[in-house]
């Protein structure tokens, strides 16, 4: 593989990274918001959110990306490829993140809340200073795990023509007629990216275990 091929490959990697990065960034926060709203148990909203989570977790990313990209024009929304990809990935990862956050909230001990209220803290202060920091530590392993799953699922965006790290190998082999090297190189790059994430997940798990609620 010559330099040009490598450059294309790195471009593909960059596409994957920035698309996933945005989806992860929004998805983690969105998941938290959804989990919090679900804690409030608002009647109609709760059912809607449960439905969304159930559907989003059952729908393949490929299908979702295609669906959004092809259906948006019908509703008058002009979505370019990248936007469709980001929206699809965000909707997908937010649903999983919502469940991860929710599990952390539900397993939080009531005793800490009672102790906080007993010394005069308001619910808000308790949440901000005591609950949320611990929630973040507990949820982090699951969230990082989901991040690596998103990156592993990101090749789905190739289906709408985005030249990500996977699709770029088609591009390269169309010129070189040599498909194996770029695929192997892409595999190595994915291994590096996800390997780093898995290491971070390990660190997060150790920190969460020390919290040992």
């Amino acid at each position, binding site marked *: 593989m010559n330099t040009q091929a490598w450059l294309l490959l790195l471009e593909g990697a960059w596409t994957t990274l920035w698309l996933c990065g945005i989806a992860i960034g929004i998805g983690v926060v969105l998941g938290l918001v959804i989990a919090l709203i679900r804690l409030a148990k608002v009647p109609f909203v709760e059912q809607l959110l449960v439905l969304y989570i*159930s*559907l989003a*977790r*059952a*729908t*393949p*990313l*490929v*299908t*979702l990306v*295609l*669906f959004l990209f*092809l*259906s948006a024009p*019908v*509703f008058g929304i002009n979505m370019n490829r990248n936007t469709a990809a980001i929206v699809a990935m965000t909707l997908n990862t937010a649903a999983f993140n919502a469940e991860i956050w929710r599990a952390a909230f539900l397993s939080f001990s009531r005793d800490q809340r009672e102790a906080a209220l007993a010394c005069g803290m308001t619910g808000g202060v308790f949440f901000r200073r005591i609950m949320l920091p611990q929630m973040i530590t507990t949820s982090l392993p699951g969230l990082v795990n989901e991040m690596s799953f998103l*990156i*592993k*699922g*990101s*090749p*789905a965006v*190739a*289906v709408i023509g985005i030249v990500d790290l*996977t699709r770029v*190998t*088609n591009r390269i*082999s169309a010129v070189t007629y*040599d*498909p*194996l090297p770029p*695929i*192997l190189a*892409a*595999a190595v790059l*994915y*291994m590096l990216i*996800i*390997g780093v994430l*898995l290491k971070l997940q390990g660190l997060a798990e150790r920190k969460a275990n020390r919290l040992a609620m």
Partner: protein
Amino acid sequence: MTEWTILWEARALFLDGLLATLGLFALSILCAFVLGCAWVFLLEERNRLSIVVRGWINLMRTLPFLILAYLLYYGLPELGLRMSAWTAGLLALVIYHAAYFAEILRGSRLVLPEGYIEAAKAHGFTPLRLYLRITLPQLLIKTRPLLGNQLIIALKDTAFLTIITVQELTAAANSVQSTYFIPTQAFVVVIVMYWLISICLELALKRAGRFGARRGFDHV
């Protein structure tokens, strides 16, 4: 003709896609399951083979599924191994998910109380019989929720095979929408189908959970 009538007209396409997806899913998870259990058995010994298996499992956990499918479908022909998209897809599904099944079982094996194994050893169980009769049943009961999760992931991974031209359910939706220009409806139908399949899977797994609950296993 309303859009929904068109959908009904196109039902053959959807059905073909659905059958292809179900076929790929069922066949692949069956093979992946057997393969995964076999790999975990190989991990019971501490030898060179187990190191290779361990390395392979870890490798699969760092790769996207589609890259493996690409490797088998686009990459292998260069080495002289040509196969249909369906075969490449099936093989990729089997190898990939076998690794994930193995990892799930391995995690549970690490925390399985050694006493059960020792009692079996003390009574003369050979390694294979010990694994099949004593170790594996307990691992399966304990990891049922995680295995179930992995099944749903395997179902969704079949959709990736659209990209390597396998005519499964998502490809069917794409086909219908490009022929009849009803993207929303076509995909809604298909998304609902995926959703229904996964709900059926979850119900089946819940029933399977009773097997463990009856024997006193918690959190199954």
